[in-house]
């Protein structure tokens, strides 16, 4: 029969004797671990899901005009309007096509506009591209691509938000605006594409080129040009060659690939995560204070016992160990419960905030649980060190005199 270390047994019994107090102290650690692990998991899941979505279009280079001076070249969402000079010309498009070699190159018009259905209204991105590009780039789940200017296809997010179906009528624009209102018919619904930088079709309306230029003017003034590279290893070469051929004198165009976007999203997520982790860290700090308090109480209550232990030959180091074990038991149990709870709570929170638990069991996500656990347990042990040191350095004669 192998019995555990007698010093450890004393620690165990002390925790058990003051169970309520120990449980309350452990609760702080539980909360801290759950907070840290859940936030870490949310961040990891967001990053993984964004990375996955972007990597689907990792072979796409997005070329936008650089004449607007930085601001107007955001991907997708129509901030580059044909009303200003922030557009690519058809000459530039031809140059890009030449520089891109065998890659598939298409242009995109985009604009943000008001839309209205029979029961609600809001804003959406309106895209247009030539008919060939439309069939090449987009996939329908239902219906067909527009064949006349009064026909459009729409993204799945809009379908959900406005209850649109194939055959529904949608009014684009506002009667008070210069462009006025135009009513179009939905002929097809697009497949979900997720987040990407080339074209965010999920919450957009795709019209024909003729409709778009008829409504917003700006023929041959493209918001962006997308280059779909055949071989992903060539993406840098093609990016450079476009840059060289178009930006010879002035910086005319800006060439971006999804890795750039991923970097910027990751860094934003990283900042947000650090901020959230700092708040979670405060809960661990509070837990550390409560462990410290409990340990100081335990030492004070047991001064006489420490005196007895010392007088009959217990070494300072063994007394130290006894109290550090006590803190460690509270820490490990707290961190363990915290780990189990963070799996449950993390799953729910990730589902709520990221919208999918597809990546929940990925290493980067689950690694937050042991990480949080170790941080929690270590903080607990560290909080117990000073009280333990105090206990071990008590004068045995003084300690024995205590009541």
């Amino acid at each position, binding site marked *: 029969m192998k019995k555990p270390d*007698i010093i450890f047994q004393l620690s165990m019994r002390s925790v058990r004797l003051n169970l309520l107090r120990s449980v309350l102290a452990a609760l702080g650690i539980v909360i801290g671990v759950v907070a840290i692990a859940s936030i870490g998991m949310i961040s990891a899941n967001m990053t993984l899901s964004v990375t996955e979505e972007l990597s689907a279009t990792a072979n796409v280079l997005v070329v936008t005009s650089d004449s607007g001076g930085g601001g107007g070249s955001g991907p997708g969402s129509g901030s580059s309007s044909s009303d200003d000079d922030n557009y690519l010309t058809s000459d530039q498009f031809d140059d890009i096509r030449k520089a891109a070699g065998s890659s598939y190159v298409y242009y995109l018009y985009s604009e943000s506009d008001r839309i209205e259905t029979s029961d609600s209204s809001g804003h959406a991105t309106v895209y247009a591209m030539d008919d060939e590009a439309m069939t090449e780039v987009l996939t329908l789940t239902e219906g067909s691509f527009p064949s006349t200017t009064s026909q459009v296809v729409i993204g799945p997010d809009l379908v959900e938000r406005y209850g649109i179906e194939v055959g529904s009528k949608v009014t684009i624009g506002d009667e008070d605006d210069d462009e006025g209102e135009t009513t179009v018919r939905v002929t097809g619904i697009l497949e979900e594409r997720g987040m990407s930088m080339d074209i965010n079709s999920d919450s957009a309306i795709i019209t024909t080129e003729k409709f778009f230029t008829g409504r917003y003017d700006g023929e041959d003034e493209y918001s962006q040009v997308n280059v779909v590279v055949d071989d992903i290893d060539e993406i840098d070469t093609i990016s450079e060659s476009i840059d060289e051929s178009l930006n010879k004198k002035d910086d005319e165009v800006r060439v971006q690939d999804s890795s750039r976007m991923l970097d910027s999203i990751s860094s934003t997520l990283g900042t947000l995560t650090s901020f959230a982790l700092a708040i979670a860290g405060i809960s661990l700090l509070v837990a550390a204070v409560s462990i410290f308090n409990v340990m100081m109480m335990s030492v004070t209550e047991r001064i006489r016992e420490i005196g007895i232990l010392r007088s009959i030959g217990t070494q300072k180091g063994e007394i130290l160990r006894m109290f550090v074990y006590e803190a460690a038991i509270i820490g490990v149990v707290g961190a363990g419960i915290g780990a189990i709870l963070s799996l449950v709570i993390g799953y729910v929170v990730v589902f709520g905030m990221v919208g999918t638990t597809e990546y929940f069991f990925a290493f980067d996500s689950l690694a937050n649980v042991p990480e949080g656990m170790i941080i929690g347990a270590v903080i607990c042990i560290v909080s117990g060190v000073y009280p333990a040191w105090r206990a071990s350095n008590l004068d045995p004669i003084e300690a024995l005199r205590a009541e």
Partner: protein
Amino acid sequence: MGIIMDSTPVIALEDVRKIYPLLSGDVHALDGVSLTIEKGEFVAIMGPSGSGKSTLMNQIGCLDVPTSGTVKIEGQDIGELSDYDLTALRRDSIGYIFQKFNLIPLLTAYENVEYPLVLKDRSYDTSGRVQALLDSVGIDPALAAHRPAELSGGQQQRVAVARALVNEPAILLCDEPTGNLDSKTSTQIMEMLARLNREGRTVIMVTHDESTAEYADRTILIQDGRIA
């Protein structure tokens, strides 16, 4: 176990002084005490409260070191020992019996006796020695499974005696061993100590009770930090 004559005394104090510096002036708790105790002796230390007998006890018990002078336990000068070695000396060479029993409340009676043995050997008792000692002081296994709080004063002190003996110490140091016991139990405990002394153990006992002191071969009287 018979008395083996040894040239080194178990305890030898030479001109021991213990001074406690206070704001109101130094307190000379021990003021030049010289004392030799041979192996197998039963010595009672008596004196009024504040006389310095507790301080003397702490010196012999290796809980404290003198301000000046030497205290030798089995020839070992405790003033030269580190805290670690002093603690080990308390564990291996001295068995304490306190007035307030001082059992460890978290451990059962059995575990209390086993504790110093585990500290020394770093393993649990498998020889049956712990229970044999408990039997010899009249604590049966059923009783030994109880925590100190569930035992009477007399039972606790018996467990304390067994604990003091478990590491075969050279000295049995008793601080008012019957101070918290009724007269009948006191007699039983004193008989037990006398028997242990007859078996060859050195017993040193601090007491203020004349009748208890009668069990001793020699009585040392302390007054104002000196041997009177």
